[in-house]
């Protein structure tokens, strides 16, 4: 029987640079609240290519509730929240919810292998922001950061840090928005 010695395992962690991802039990809990934007205002522009080389413009999504998530594969809470973002999308897309995950600064060769490790694997669009310009336009100061854009195109919620997107409390906030 093949047994991996703990010392060897340590070097696997180190060589692949995934040290930021020890056992999930050691990671801080994902939270589940969305903060209402005090004075809702028009969402900044967002027009980026997807991994399928299509272009998505948030301006064309008026009438829908759009969850905009800024992330990177090397960001531990970004990785941890990704499955719940897909679950949210699966349960709410028929009701008019759109999820856009904006990757910051990475290429398809880096992103694609990671997506294969996510269960359930994301089926929502992954947008590519190669030069990170969207972070300054959306005033993002740390990853992950998520915004919710209402049907009228206004920013209505935001969340700094990793979230459990399919938590009932968070889901209810979004479902209420979808009913409006």
């Amino acid at each position, binding site marked *: 029987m093949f047994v991996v010695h703990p010392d060897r395992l340590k070097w696997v962690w180190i060589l692949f640079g995934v040290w930021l991802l020890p056992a999930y039990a*050691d990671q801080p809990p994902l939270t589940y609240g969305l903060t209402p934007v005090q004075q809702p205002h028009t969402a900044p522009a967002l027009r980026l290519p997807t991994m399928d080389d299509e272009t998505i413009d948030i301006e064309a999504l008026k009438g829908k509730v759009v969850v905009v998530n800024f992330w990177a594969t090397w*960001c531990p809470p970004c990785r941890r929240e990704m499955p719940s973002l897909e679950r949210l999308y699966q349960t709410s897309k028929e009701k008019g919810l759109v999820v856009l995950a904006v990757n910051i600064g990475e290429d398809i060769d880096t992103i694609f292998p990671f997506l294969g490790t996510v269960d359930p694997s994301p089926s929502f669009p992954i947008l590519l922001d190669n030069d990170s310009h969207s972070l300054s336009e959306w005033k993002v100061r740390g990853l992950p950061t998520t915004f919710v854009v209402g049907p009228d195109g206004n920013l209505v919620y935001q969340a700094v840090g990793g979230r459990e997107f399919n938590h009932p409390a968070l889901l209810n906030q979004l479902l209420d928005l979808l009913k409006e």
Partner: protein
Amino acid sequence: MLLMSNTASAQSQTVDPTSGAVSWETQIHGVTLSLTQILPDQARAFYLNRGLPAVATEPYAKACVYMTILRNDSAPGVVQFRLEDWSVVSTDQSRPPLSVEEWLKRLEEYDLTQAAMIAFRWAQFPPEHAYQPGGDWNQGMLTTGLEADTVFNLVARWDVAGEPYQGVLRNVRCAP
């Protein structure tokens, strides 16, 4: 008025059985603050894997690096902070953590790819932020600039509605 230090708050310490990295954590005034050692080999591996050359990675890996978490669990309002207001207090000095801007300036001499610069910049703990109550938080890398094995206190400072607060992690040790 400085409302409180966390002399009465509990501070926990844990050790990762795989890497041996030590973590320190405290909860104070509705805020969670923690530091986890990033071992020099871990810091080297992380940035070498993201395109930084070894010569650029080495000073960073030896700068006493921590994975830092600050979370607003139940503070009485929005937690606003700037890292330049924090103090790393050792026996012979008290100064803020090394700034992201300082590291980015050091990296200018290397011909780094845009992707490498972006990964470096955004993997650092935010230089400033505002966390809403109920769960806003960040996790990122923070450098103290101290030598290996140095023991220090981290004094984290933040404001809530204009009132200053602080939390202290005591007897934190730099990785060997």
